[in-house]
């Protein structure tokens, strides 16, 4: 079973609902961003909005995950997430250490027998 029709029609759906629905926001951002001053107040506010939004996305991925992550308990996910932070700071703020450490801890926490 194909979720989309073959040929031109399926690709057209993906182009419109995927590319256009996404790209319009980049075009708008380009339009507004090229008129703003680097040190300006508006830009500072937009930066705060973008940062809060991405942070919100992280918590959503952690608390309400999709796919294979949803099969693990919340406790395992939270413990490994905290573990990733500890690895990051213990590893002198090395991103690779934090990201890899957290993922390894996730596997270990899941495999650990529950007392």
């Amino acid at each position, binding site marked *: *079973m*194909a*979720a*989309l029709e073959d040929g031109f029609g399926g690709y057209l*759906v*993906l*182009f419109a*609902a*995927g590319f*256009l*629905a*996404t790209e319009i*926001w*980049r*075009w708008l*951002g*380009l339009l*507004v*961003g*090229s008129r*703003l001053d*680097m040190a300006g107040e508006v830009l500072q*506010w*937009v*930066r*705060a*909005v*973008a*940062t*809060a*939004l*991405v*942070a*919100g*996305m*992280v*918590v*959503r*991925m952690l*608390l*309400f995950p*999709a*796919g*294979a*992550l949803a*099969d*693990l308990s919340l406790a395992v996910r939270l413990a*490994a*997430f905290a573990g*990733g932070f500890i690895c*990051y700071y213990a590893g002198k703020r090395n*991103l*690779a250490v*934090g*990201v*890899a450490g*957290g993922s390894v801890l*996730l*596997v270990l926490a*899941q495999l650990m027998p529950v007392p």
Partner: protein
Amino acid sequence: MPPSTTAGAFVGGLGLIISVPSVVLFTTALGFGALARDGGFDFGHAVFLSAIVFALPNQMVLIDQLMRGATFAGAALAVTLTAVRLMPMTVTLVPLLQSEKRRPLLQVLAAHFIAISTWIEGHRRLPTIPVALRLPFHLGAGVAMACMMLSGTIAGYLLVAGLPALVTAALLFMTPLYFILSLIATSRSAMDLAAVAIGCGLSPVLYLVMPGFDLLATGLIGGTLAYVLGRRR
């Protein structure tokens, strides 16, 4: 060492192909490829999406919507709501990329290459690069990330079905960890840190109160609060 020529800057950007964000992007794309196959999408459709959209969360939402039998309008709306984040991200990155020479077409291409990974790396690396060389660096980074996204999608579609679920989960887990740690690493002010903290706190509440619009609301409310708090200091 910062690059000194346009070609050098482009190659420097390409060099991001060996980096934490590139690995994270690859693993997320693996997940996307596997999801597309599970959902009954053609190989060509999955690769086409990765080639033109360059924003994995949006591609996941689109696949998910079509899998659930959503109408075209419903799917497009869900995707565009997920994509709103790209506007403030583009607004803050574009001024960094501007030099005296106007290159409208390259700017449009540069905007296309804005996703969370290139946005984070851009804020981290571009300020240390001479203004005239930032655009080629960012384009190089975009090409590198696009290559990782395409190869991840292809590998995920063709190979991932055989992986144990726990390994897939561990790969997926890299994405939120990379996002949050790099947000903290690139924070330059109390306002940035406040935005991270408030965004984290607001998001689960708003997710339950207004699903679909939760990220937009988290950004607007959380960002504004952080801005006001940051200004008062």
